[in-house]
Every structure is written in structure tokens, then in C-alpha cells.
């Protein structure tokens, strides 16, 4: 197994680990971080598998996609953090109310 696949598997691991954290944690900051860990996992899969070119220059297209993805992730994180602060200012807690039978 080449290192490309090893990194890709780490990416899959990060994705599921982030998803687990997103589900079990209630604090919004942790949820936002969890989303970011998931995103890093996806980016790692994208970039790692681009190196399956047998020594030649890696495929540049996934690299460009990851740059796009990072910018999107940064933008979304900024909005999420600002929104979290607003939620805390309004409700006193940086948590989502438990959904009671919605």
C-alpha cells in the first residue's frame, strides 16, 4: 500500500472522527471545530490520492479544488463563529436547545 492510500485512509478517519464529535458534543464551538476536522479529512483524501502518478508531478486539479474548499471552509467557519457569539448573547448559552420531538 502506497503512502497515498495511507494518507487517504487518515483522511477518511478524520472525516468520521469529526462526524462523531459533531454528534456527541453539544457546545457550538466544538461542533464548529468538528465540522472543520471533517473538512480537513475530505481535503486530505482529495490531495493524497492526487499523488498516484508514479513519481510524476501530482495531479494539480485536486490541489486547486482543495484551495477552493479551504476558502469555503474559512468563510463558513467565520460566519458560524459570529453566529455562535450572537446565539450566546441572545440565549446565554452557546448550545442549541434540545430538539423536543420536532
Amino acid at each position, binding site marked *: 500500500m502506497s503512502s497515498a492510500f495511507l494518507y487517504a485512509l487518515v483522511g477518511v478517519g478524520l472525516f468520521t472522527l469529526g462526524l462523531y464529535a459533531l454528534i456527541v458534543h*453539544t457546545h457550538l464551538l466544538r461542533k464548529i471545530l468538528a465540522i472543520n476536522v471533517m473538512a480537513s479529512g475530505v481535503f486530505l483524501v482529495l490531495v493524497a490520492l492526487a499523488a498516484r502518478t508514479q513519481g510524476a508531478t501530482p495531479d*494539480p486539479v*485536486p490541489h486547486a479544488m482543495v*484551495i477552493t474548499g479551504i476558502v469555503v471552509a474559512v468563510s463558513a467557519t467565520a460566519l458560524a463563529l459570529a453566529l455562535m457569539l450572537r446565539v450566546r448573547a441572545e440565549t446565554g448559552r452557546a448550545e442549541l436547545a434540545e430538539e423536543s420531538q420536532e
Partner: protein
Amino acid sequence: MKKTRKPKSITENGKKPAQFRLLPAVLLSALAVGLGYAVLSLPSQASGLSEPVAANLESSGVSNPVTAVLLNFRGYDTLLELGVLLLALLGVWSLGAAPKRRESSPGLVLEMLSRLLVPLLILVAGYLLWIGVHAPGGAFQAGSVLATAGVLSLLTGWRLDTRFSGLPLRITLVAGLGVFVVVGIVLIPMGGRLLAYPPSFAGALILLIEAAATLSIGITLAALFLGGRPETGGHS
């Protein structure tokens, strides 16, 4: 994972109770195995699109393949992505004014450091922008470095003069997206399509777009750090 048994508590350490954690852990392990299996089933050799990229690199106007993909071959993605960044700022601004920070002196070290680093960071941003044409670098890297200069200045208590925080600031923020769209549109009547750069101008046009984008990305990220609308002068 530490196991503390407190059955009645709704949350412990901001987590859902243990019985609600086991099920997702089991299901997600299965998901990870499944996805891992799918990844491993991919062919061990694949060149993706590296051949078409290499074949067309000559006419893209730049020699760094990632920049070529980002600004030329898939430039439309990048255009929309600058939109996403601007949109995030609009969203943050729509939530309200920037939270007031307590006036505190930044401390000698921070002040000295920022005085030394800010010019250096701006220089590095310019270098990254320039080098992106043929080596790793480019607008996004340069923009993030520029943003660190902005964040560092904000940390030392610097604020944009209210004279500039109205229209001048907004123009800077939209410059990247604006220049990209205008360049893309202007090319259409010149016999091309949206964002179809003529190979002889491609390099110059890409650098123009990247320069505007670097400025906008840097300022937008720094403005996002503030976490809200900056104070404006009496009129906007």
C-alpha cells in the same frame, strides 16, 4: 474515552450521555470501514487530469499548474469562491456591529513585533503573489499572509480610520470579485467566452485578477476577524 457513569445527567463535559455516544461510535466505525474499503478499491495508478493540464499549460499564461487550474481552467470556480468569501463577510456584518473590545495596551513585545512584522508580511504577500505564476504561491496564499498583517495590527489596537471604513473599504472588499467578473465579461465581445483569456494576454490578466483578489482576500479575512461591522463615519 473516559467512562464516568452519571446516568441522569443531560450533558457531561458538554457531551451527550454515554448511552447516546455508543451507537454513533459503532455506526461511524462501520462507516469508516466502508469508506476505507472504497478508497482502497481505487486503482493504485491514476494520473487524473494532469496530462490535459500539462498539455494546455503553455496557453494558460502561467507555468504553475495549480495556478493555471485555479485561475484559468477552472477559473469560474474561483470566481464563485471569491463570492463565497464576500458573502461570509456580508453575513457577519448583517449580524451586527463588531463587539467592543476593552481598550488595553498591547504590551511592548506585541507592539514591537507587529511594527517589525507588518511590513515584512506585506512584502511576503507581494512575493507570494508574484511567485505564484511559476511556483507554489498565488492569490490565496498571499491573501492569507496579508490578512495576518491585518490581524496583527488589529490585535495591537489599530482600527481603520472611519473616513475609510465606508465606501473605500467596501470597494476594496469587492475588488477581487469585481475585477474577476469585469475581466470575464469584457472577454466575451472580444470573440471569446466568459473567462476565455487570449493566450497572449493570459499571464497579465491572471496577475491583474490575482492582485485584486489578494487585496480583497487579505482585507476580508482581517475584517472577518473583527467579527462584525466596523464603525463608520457619519455618512456611508
